């Protein structure tokens, strides 16, 4: 009950009962058509996408991990064979260390480290400890964690000796490096005879903040003494630059480390791959509209550089789409979607009819067909099936041509249509790209490409067109090959052209007569002007025109496609609100302009003003804005009561006589303490009955 809540800070309520998630999917939305199916397809889609992203991540990290493993193996084998190099290192007590430069997208690192430790456990050694700076506030914690994880690892690795090891960890022996090395000896003795080659500890560590390092110092000094009997390898994760190691660790420590640098893939490349694999493909039926994509990319570029967050945004848009769009039930693979169309209910058919893109389509049809579409459900379903197929084909063509156009535009100076394919994608999704100025200038620049470049690009394009579903583009490929062949021929022709010009030059030299000379010069000039274009130029124009026609026919904006609402998520606003919210602005608007929220006519006022019927806190806030650093409570109270009583039309004399109404006083107290809670003011001891202002400026 409410009473118990007031007296206790935490209130557990224990009444477990299994629940059905799909219920929430259907609730709240008046349109609960096919919610179960929608939810199922949403979950399925997300699962697919999630596994795809993991795969991408794995592939991207593969090289890095391979390098790391090679490094570990190398230092390890040295330990095994007791080569001279390792002995040297032992003499100088150096610990082999890998420094992993990961970039500033700290949030993605967790995933990287997780997969790294998995890979290491599988490939190199069962003894992998992953420590996070945040989780280890002191050296004690650190060692404790290290021990704990090592023991656990051991348990996992060798189940026969499980009991013994549990004993060790439960004893909670002094966590020190000494005990650690003792333990290691113990373990190696027992299992040493079987698999001596697998003994190695590498502690990978997430290292971001300077204060941790103070703690490290000790550990590294200690551990260097034990390196003789204890083959330790450290892996540091670094967010900024490798120099930080030297800055954070004193020389005495860093000299004990034998550091090798590894550079991970930049987050930008990671994002590019993710976009390429998730968005620019027909593999997944779900698509993002231009604005949504723009929001996600902006969050990535201007806020966190986190691919993880990008994927989170992607997930959110999937959920939002399936939640809010009843027709999203058709957002699945084409065959499945066609099946689902046949079982659509009447309501869903009405939903289709009310789609703006479908209405446009209906209007473009002849009148009998219009009537049929709007009245007969069965006919509508047939048409919907063909339309969905069209949409699918549109996407197939779109992505191929987009890649082709991207090949062209990336070779241009200054990248008028963007360097990344995502920029080009955004430009094409939003509006007809051929109407934009950037496209115009890109085409202009294309008309000036040199021959070698053009040929190279054409070859790349031909590859793109051949590789995927070559059916639709067999004509295009033929055409491209024809162009290439003609370029080949041009080289032969070019020689002849040269001959002609040389002969005319010679002719010029022969004539000595002034009149004739003038005449020939004029003629030459004329011919130069009229000699429109060389064959190469003609061909180049032809190629560019061909590309232009491809763009015009295949890169039409998605919004123009019928039934695009089924697969495109386009409420960018919700996405921005939920991912990149601005709580301060919301607070400010609520205080400054309560009309935004409370649609009451008395609150309507011009910019910068506030009605005096507004909620108390708004008035108090407005009054406080006028003050300097300190605010006198008495004055504030009086100002407040003046404003409030002015509204209520009470006798002004009452105000004048210092008698502030009790209720108004109470309201004032409440409003002021609310402002304090919100962080606008704080009590001040500088002067009696004063509070200090904490914010400045308009917001």
């Amino acid at each position, binding site marked *: 009950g409410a009473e118990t809540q*007031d007296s*206790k*800070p*935490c209130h*557990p*309520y224990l*009444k*477990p009962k299994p629940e059905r998630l799909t219920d*929430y*999917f259907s609730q*709240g939305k008046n349109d609960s058509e096919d919610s179960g199916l929608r939810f199922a397809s949403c979950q399925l889609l997300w699962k697919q996408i999630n596994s795809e992203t993991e795969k991408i991540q794995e592939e991207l990290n593969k090289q890095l991990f391979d390098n790391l493993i090679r490094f570990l193996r190398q230092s390890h084998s040295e330990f095994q064979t007791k080569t001279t190099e390792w002995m040297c290192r032992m003499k100088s007590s150096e610990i082999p260390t890998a420094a992993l430069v990961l970039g500033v997208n700290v*949030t993605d690192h*967790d995933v990287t480290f997780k997969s790294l430790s998995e890979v290491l456990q599988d490939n190199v050694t069962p003894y992998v400890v992953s420590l996070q700076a945040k989780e280890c*506030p002191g050296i004690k914690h650190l060692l404790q964690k290290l021990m704990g994880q090592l023991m656990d690892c051991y348990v996992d690795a060798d189940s026969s000796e499980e009991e013994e090891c549990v004993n060790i960890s439960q004893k909670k022996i002094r966590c020190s490096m000494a005990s650690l090395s003792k333990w290691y000896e113990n373990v190696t003795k027992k299992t040493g005879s079987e698999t001596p080659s697998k003994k190695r500890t590498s502690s990978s560590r997430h290292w971001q903040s300077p204060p941790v390092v103070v703690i490290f110092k000790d550990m590294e000094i200690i551990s260097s003494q034990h390196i003789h009997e204890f083959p330790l390898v450290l892996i540091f994760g670094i967010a900024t630059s490798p120099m930080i190691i030297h800055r954070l660790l004193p020389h005495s420590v860093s000299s004990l480390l034998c550091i090798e640098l590894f550079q991970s893939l930049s987050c930008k490349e990671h994002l590019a791959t993710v976009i390429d694999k998730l968005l620019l493909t027909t593999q997944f039926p779900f698509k993002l509209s231009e604005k949504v994509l723009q929001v996600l990319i902006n969050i990535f570029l201007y806020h966190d550089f986190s691919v993880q967050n990008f994927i*989170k945004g992607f*997930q959110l848009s999937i*959920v939002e789409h399936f*939640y809010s769009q009843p027709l999203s039930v058709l957002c699945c693979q084409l065959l499945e979607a066609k099946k689902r169309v046949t079982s659509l209910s009447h309501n869903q058919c009405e939903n289709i009819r009310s789609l703006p893109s479908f209405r446009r389509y209906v209007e473009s049809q002849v009148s009998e067909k219009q009537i049929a579409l709007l009245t007969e459900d069965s006919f509508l379903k047939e048409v919907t099936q063909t339309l969905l197929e069209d949409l699918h084909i549109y996407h197939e063509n779109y992505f191929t041509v987009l890649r082709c156009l991207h090949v062209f535009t990336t070779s241009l100076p200054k990248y008028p249509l963007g360097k990344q394919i995502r920029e080009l994608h955004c430009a094409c999704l939003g509006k007809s790209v051929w109407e934009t100025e950037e496209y115009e200038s890109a085409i202009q620049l294309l008309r000036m490409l040199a021959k070698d470049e053009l040929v190279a690009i054409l070859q790349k394009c031909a590859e793109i067109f051949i590789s995927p579903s070559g059916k639709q583009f067999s004509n295009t490929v033929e055409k491209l090959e024809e162009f290439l062949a003609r370029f080949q021929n041009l080289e032969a022709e070019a020689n002849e052209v040269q001959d002609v010009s040389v002969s005319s030059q010679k002719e010029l030299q022969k004539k000595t007569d002034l009149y004739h000379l003038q005449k020939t010069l004029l003629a030459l000039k004329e011919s130069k002007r009229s000699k429109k274009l060389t064959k190469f130029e003609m061909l180049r124009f032809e190629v560019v025109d061909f590309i232009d026609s491809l763009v015009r026919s295949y890169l039409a904006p998605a919004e123009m496609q019928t039934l695009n609402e089924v697969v495109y998520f386009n409420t960018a606003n919700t996405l921005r*609100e*939920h*991912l990149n*919210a601005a*709580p*301060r602005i*919301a607070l400010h608007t609520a205080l400054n302009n309560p009309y935004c*929220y*409370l*649609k009451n006519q008395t609150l309507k*006022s*011009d910019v*910068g003003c506030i009605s005096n019927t507004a909620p108390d806190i708004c008035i108090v806030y407005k*009054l406080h*804005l006028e*003050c*300097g650093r300190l605010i*006198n*409570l*008495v*004055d504030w109270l*009086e*100002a407040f009561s003046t404003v409030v009583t*002015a509204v209520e039309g009470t006798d*002004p004399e009452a105000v*004048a006589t*210092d008698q*502030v109404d009790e209720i108004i006083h*109470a309201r004032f*107290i*409440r409003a*002021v*303490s*609310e402002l*304090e809670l*919100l*962080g606008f003011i704080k*009590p001040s001891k500088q002067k*009696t*009955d*004063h509070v200090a202002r904490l*914010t400045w400026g308009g917001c």
Partner: protein
Amino acid sequence: MHLVPTRAAATRLGASCEPRGRERNWGGGARACCSLRLQFRGQLGARPLPPCKVYVRSPLAVRRLLRPGARGALLPGKGGCKAAGLPGALRGGQCPASYLVNACWHCRLSAMSQLELKRNKVLEARFVADEDVLKHISDNGGVKVRKDRAQLALNIKRFVKKLENISDDDEAQEILEEQNYVAVLGACAEASELAQTPGKNVTFESSQYPEKPASTPQSNKKYSASNKAQLKSKKNEFVSTTPYRLRKRLSAPSLRSDSESDYSASCSEEEEEEDKDHKETSDVILDQKTPSKTRAAPASKKTPAKKLKEEMTSNLVEEYFEAHSSSKVLTSDRTLQKLQKRKLDQQTLLVLLNKAPPAFTAELKELNQQHESLFSKWMLQLHLGFSIVLYGLGSKRDLLEKFRTSLLQDSVHLVVNGFFPSITVRSILNSITEEVLDHVGTFRSPLDQLDLIMKRFKEDSSLELYLLIHNLDSKMLRGDKSQQILAQLASLPNIHLIASIDHINAPLMWDQAKQSLYNWLWYETTTFSPYLEETSYENSLLVQQSGSLALSSLTHVLHSLTPNARGIFRLLAQYHLENKDNPSYPGLSFQDFYQRCREAFLVNSDLTLRAQLTEFRDHKLIRTKRGTDGVEYLLIPVDNGTLTDFLEKEDEDM
């Protein structure tokens, strides 16, 4: 800081300034009105003015000098502005137009060219009535003038119209006149001029200028210091610089009489040698300006819009530093005690608030319904691994409570009242381990506890917990460590966190790593409902309830003690009250106290008393202080009023 035309300002600006006042009655008998006009004469181009040490190079800098606070008129021009040439200089293209307008607007030039003291490089001050200024400005034709104070006065006046008797002819005439100013201004198209408009003027009245930027900074705060100086020299004419004075002046004339003693700087200052003092102040101010003007000068060449923006931001910044540069803040000295307000305790406050008529119920209900329609969506998203954070003005407690009762009744959930003053992360973790996981035993550190929780939840995927946290940003939970632990909890796939935040800087609690652990989805839920529960725990409810709180705790503690102990405290309290008028009262020495207690048969040995005192000290009922002579003195750190109340109550009980 703002001077209103109806207010008089007879100020002397150093030795070189010559004040001339002209009084004018605005009808309100007590209000002596005349305005100070300052005229900068002579060459201002890159030449120091010895008396004031003004280094002026750019028009902008000149303008700066002429902010309303300076109340001066300065005429720029090559080789200075001769008195007769004033209109010419204004009309002619000697200076950039905007600059002219600015200068004119700010300083309200006087057309009269008297005071022909040909002292070059010298500041001259004189007093001109507002109408004269207006006349001069309109004489000059093309130059349109803006007077912010006019608007201020106008607005304020309109606002208090109901309160004030406006039958006064002069008053009405004044309003007309002010409107005149405004009309003249209406034609003034310079956006940059408008940028100077103090935004605060329009608090209660509709804006006259639709094109005026909403967040216009209050440029007039700048000259607080110089105003202060002026105030000092003519205290009886000026009231403080807080905005309340406007309201006070207009609404409560009866307060006027005591206003002169009412206001002071929070840092007391030597009030002698006013002239000297003032000169220094102005020196400081003007010197401060010089470095900034070089930066600001090129800005004037930019497009109006850009200039406007730049000025806005720069003003914001300057305004901030202006307010924080000097340690003195001028506010009124009035205290709540003088107001003879009875302090309210929490109970009375609630009773009173219940009496207050609720406003906008229909709208609030609608707003809440909007939020409630999101409940099932929240549930869905919580299950998909997101955490939900609610922000926006108004208490979100009821909303979350409703969410809980409507959707979480059948599942395990934990409600955390973050606003509770005694809450810690530990108590949250304890409730999880003890009540949800049924774990018996203690933990060495919260981290161990967290490890256990994480392990248990990872092992058992059928285990599910909803965590509802009201005010995740409360004082007790906003620490980095607490947030880290909570974030790690939230990152567990079967713990679903839904929380609310209120503080404006709450998002600063989380860095990227924590945010990704939390995996927030933000929802704006502005409810406008009062933070009753949340603020009721605040001990610092400013001033109003401290007394009652102390009293109740006092009685509470003493009731749990033996009668003898109560008697001991009574004795001390009585002695304390007897000496309340003695400013050098050091407290009761231990030996004296012992004697008294013995005499009253309260203790029989030194040790018993000491044991008793330790108990008091633990409850913060007394404080000990060692005097200069090494003797221990006992004090009661409770204010006398509360103590008297306490003794009275004790007498009643006995």
